[in-house]
């Protein structure tokens, strides 16, 4: 708004001096009337009284005219505020008199203040977040095409046969976990991991990097109507929605751009700890249920079970 911004043509210092001059003028005019009200002082001779009265009166009138000329001089310095609205079109809204029914201008101001604050906070947040880089792509933002990217892009372009081999080796690692690989949409592998009779996990991959996971119940339908693996719909149960969130956190935790097969192996090891999703109590509070949910969090190092609210 106009606060803090001097509109052109208004001299603020002269303005304050003019206000002081007005006060001085007022007091001198009051003095004139006081003098008249008091009348003649008590002196010896009539002439003496008249003379002193007239002198006093003249003096007050002089001070009045002096103050008035000072005020006139200052008022010329102050200048006129510019006729143009410094607020342009939005300022025209403030001329609407019906304030309580349509408080458009105040709402507009609030909206602007809020969006400015939001922009400022977003700038701060992006600065902080950029310090912890979570990028999993080989190219860096803003790098010119001529300069070679620093990370090796070769791990992104692996032959599908290699991916199949790695996955089948991991499939054989754990007896209670079976992995089925398919490629319904181009070269990206879609894994359907079945863990015992507890849950099913759909893993969408990009060469050997894990992109997304969705966790669903053992008896829930994981196929779309045309028989393809359904990679979008969420589980119907809150516990599996929570486990999906944790799995996404795990994806971001296990990262090694140079050795993606180690990453996939550690992720599968972590996932396997969910075989006891309904049987294990929380290591911290000892109970099975918290807000109706079993311990859904598995620690990344120790694979111990915790409730989402109990984890350190």
């Amino acid at each position, binding site marked *: 708004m106009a606060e803090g911004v001097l509109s052109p043509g208004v001299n603020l210092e002269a303005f304050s001096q003019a206000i002081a001059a007005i006060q001085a003028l007022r007091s001198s005019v009051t003095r004139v009337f006081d003098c008249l009200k008091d009348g003649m002082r008590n002196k010896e001779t009539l002439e003496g009284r008249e003379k002193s009265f007239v002198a006093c009166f003249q003096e007050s009138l002089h001070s009045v005219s002096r103050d008035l000329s000072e005020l006139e001089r200052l008022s010329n310095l102050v200048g006129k505020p510019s006729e143009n609205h410094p607020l342009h079109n939005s300022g025209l809204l403030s001329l609407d008199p019906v304030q309580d029914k349509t408080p458009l201008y105040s709402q507009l101001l609030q909206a602007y203040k809020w969006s400015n604050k939001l922009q400022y906070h977003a700038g701060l947040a992006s600065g902080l977040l950029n310090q912890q880089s979570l990028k999993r792509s080989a190219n860096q933002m803003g790098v010119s095409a001529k300069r070679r990217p620093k990370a090796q892009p070769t791990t992104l372009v692996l032959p599908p046969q290699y991916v199949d081999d790695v996955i089948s080796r991991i499939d054989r690692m754990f007896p209670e976990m079976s992995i089925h690989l398919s490629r319904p949409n181009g070269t990206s592998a879609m894994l359907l991991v079945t863990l015992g*009779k*507890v849950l099913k996990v759909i893993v969408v991959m990009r060469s050997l990097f894990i992109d997304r996971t969705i966790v669903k119940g053992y*008896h829930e339908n994981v196929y779309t109507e045309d028989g393809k693996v359904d990679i979008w719909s969420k589980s*119907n149960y809150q*516990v599996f929605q929570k486990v999906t969130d944790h799995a996404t956190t795990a994806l971001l935790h296990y990262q090694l751009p140079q050795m993606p097969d180690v990453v996939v192996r550690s992720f599968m090891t972590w996932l396997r700890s969910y075989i006891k999703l*309904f049987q294990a109590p929380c290591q911290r509070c000892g109970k*099975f*249920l918290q807000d*109706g949910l079993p311990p859904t969090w598995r620690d990344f190092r120790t694979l111990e079970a915790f409730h989402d609210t109990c984890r350190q």
Partner: protein
Amino acid sequence: MGVTCVSQMPVAEGKSVQQTVEILTRKLELLGAEKQGTFCVDCETYHTAASTMGNQGQAGKLMYVMHNSEYPLSCFALFENGPCLIADANFDVLMVKLKGFFQNAKANKIESRGTRYQYCDFLVKVGTVTMGPSARGISVEVEYCPCVVANDCWNLLMEFMQSFMGNHTPGNPSVFGNKHDNIYSPGDTMAQYMELFNKIRKQQQVPVAGIR
């Protein structure tokens, strides 16, 4: 069809069936459960007709035909310790046609009606068991929908039941013992209801002072 446990809640001292049901539902609502409509489970008894006994003089077997509003298009037929058949709703019409072999004992019709509550992934159904015009007891069914293996989540189910049933939490149902690691099916729920209804039928009628 998650793992389900069906049990009987004893009527509180000095209170009627209706009042005990209200106490239970209030506890559930305090816990945070949401009401989601009503449910009904009913059971009809059929005797094998005498004419089919033949020379061997076997004892007549009792067959129970049950319906559950949770599976509205199905009809369940069970023998006491025997197999459970899950058929579609036309099975009732078939039983009418088999009048010569199975006779309906109409006086033994028993049903449980009440409200259905949902809390997180749990489904709780509290019902009044009635035989004819009289209320005979209270049935509580707790289902944990995400899990399909009975032995996995028994402790979890028990902890949940304790939170609103207190000391009246039941023990391990007998159907769980036979399951090992097999997938739980709706037929097991109906077997539990059948056991419950038989138990209630044998019980003395609730004292008159409490009913009205």
